[in-house]
């Protein structure tokens, strides 16, 4: 099915192109001849108009075919949407739904707004007719067909086309980025060098095009500690083609590393493009990072908090011993100098007093006695 439509990605000033509209009833006929001047302005598409952009004169002729499912666009009755009779069995309905859903699933028709709208309609119709109770109520006219439409979120295509989609594009077994570049450089050469009439665009016949290769974008997730300390990590560019990436110590989340010459090949002996690798840092179980400082919540015993003592503290470069001063409360922050990111920041240790996991009779007895003699009010500041 060839389906002309206005490209919404076009900039606003380009949208007021001359276009041509054709009522649905004319589908299946030929569009006007080449050279016909078309003057009608593009208006928002609705169900019975078709719009095609031209540059003022009609340059393209094509057959437009209406299929039965497109005619259904205007129909709102769920039986018509699924193309089943009123007396259809549950099995018929399920079969009809699956056949239509497979055809119009939005992720199988990326960018096709009509398929998406149609699929929503199909899903809503199926939701209604597959539920015997709802179907009976609809048949009795108690509920309308639109009352049960539930919105669906189709997120995959939003990601797949953009930068995050790279991971599923680049490891395709039968289509590597190189193939794509070949395809497009072929288009480029065809457009530039071909035929005598095309000389204007080519800058002269037989001109050799030298063009630097395109940059390629990748994403690489690194472990928290590798990001702090630096590491080497393998990045799969394409099947059988990987690259050892040096992660510099202290790399930030979202930082882009540029590997020169690892992108798309150049044209006509020009240098290759670069690989641009966006770094994503996986969270750590207990370390947090703020700028160049590392934050850690450190559990201490009641005894360590009251009496002080030496405790072992993990840092990104290994465990160190730290002195907890006597009478350190929960929330006390102790600073380990130069134990932050790449030796630049500090590690800030926030103490958290933890009671023994099981009750202790001796402690209870002691506290009963002690609390009575030494009352204090830690909630003074928050009393209303």
């Amino acid at each position, binding site marked *: 099915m060839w389906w002309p439509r206005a490209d919404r990605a076009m900039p606003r000033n380009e949208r007021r192109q001359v276009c041509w509209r054709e009522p649905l009833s004319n589908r299946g006929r030929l569009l006007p001849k080449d050279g016909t001047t078309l003057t009608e302005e593009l208006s928002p598409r609705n169900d019975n108009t078709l719009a095609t952009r031209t540059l003022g004169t009609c340059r393209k002729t094509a057959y437009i075919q209406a299929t039965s499912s497109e005619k259904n666009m205007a129909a709102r009755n769920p039986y018509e949407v699924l193309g089943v009779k009123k007396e259809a069995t549950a099995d018929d309905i399920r079969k009809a739904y699956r056949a239509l859903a497979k055809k119009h699933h939005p992720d199988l028709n*990326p960018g096709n707004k009509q398929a998406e709208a149609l699929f929503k309609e199909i899903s809503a119709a199926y939701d209604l007719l597959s539920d015997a109770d709802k179907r009976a109520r609809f048949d009795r006219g108690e509920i309308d067909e639109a009352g049960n439409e539930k919105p669906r979120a189709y997120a995959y295509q939003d990601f797949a086309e953009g930068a995050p989609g790279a991971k599923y*594009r680049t490891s*395709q077994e039968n289509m590597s980025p190189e193939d794509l570049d070949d395809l497009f450089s072929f288009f480029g050469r065809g457009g530039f060098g071909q035929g005598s009439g095309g000389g204007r665009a080519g800058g002269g016949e037989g001109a050799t095009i030298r063009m630097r290769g395109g940059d390629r974008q990748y994403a690489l997730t690194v472990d928290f500690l590798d990001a702090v300390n630096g590491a080497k990590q393998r990045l799969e560019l394409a099947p059988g083609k990987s690259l050892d990436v040096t992660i510099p110590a202290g790399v930030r989340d979202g930082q882009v590393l540029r590997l020169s010459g690892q992108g798309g090949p150049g044209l006509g002996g020009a240098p290759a493009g670069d690989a641009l690798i966006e770094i994503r840092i996986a969270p750590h179980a207990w370390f947090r990072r703020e700028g160049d400082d590392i934050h850690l919540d450190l559990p201490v015993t009641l005894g360590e908090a009251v009496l002080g003592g030496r405790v072992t503290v993990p840092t990104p470069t290994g465990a160190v011993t730290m002195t907890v001063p006597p009478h350190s409360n929960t929330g006390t922050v102790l600073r380990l100098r130069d134990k932050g990111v790449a030796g630049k920041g500090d590690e800030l240790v926030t103490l958290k007093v933890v009671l023994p996991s099981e009750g202790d009779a001796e402690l209870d007895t002691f506290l009963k006695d002690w609390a009575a003699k030494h009352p204090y009010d830690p909630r003074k500041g928050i009393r209303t």
Partner: protein
Amino acid sequence: MIALEALLRQVRGLDAAELDQWIEARWVRPDRVASGYVFHEIDVARVHLIVELRHELLVDADAMPVILNLLDQVYALRNRLKSVAAAIEALPPETQVLIRERLSG
């Protein structure tokens, strides 16, 4: 980004063994870090898509790689086409007209 447990909680009708198979078959490609798998937004969306294809539309497991492969190719091409379109839009208007004439001729 979320971990495996969070993903299993988030996606209705998905069990761990099934997801393992999908990862094994490389239908879904989460990042592997020391603490386990990390799923980015796109991976989560892809899991949703596979769940729909397998559970609701009853697409056969043998047919899935074919579908996903073709789908990935479509998105790769669309991504490249978008960059070609963006490159054309950055050209002088005269050149754009020439390109359009070429394409429609």
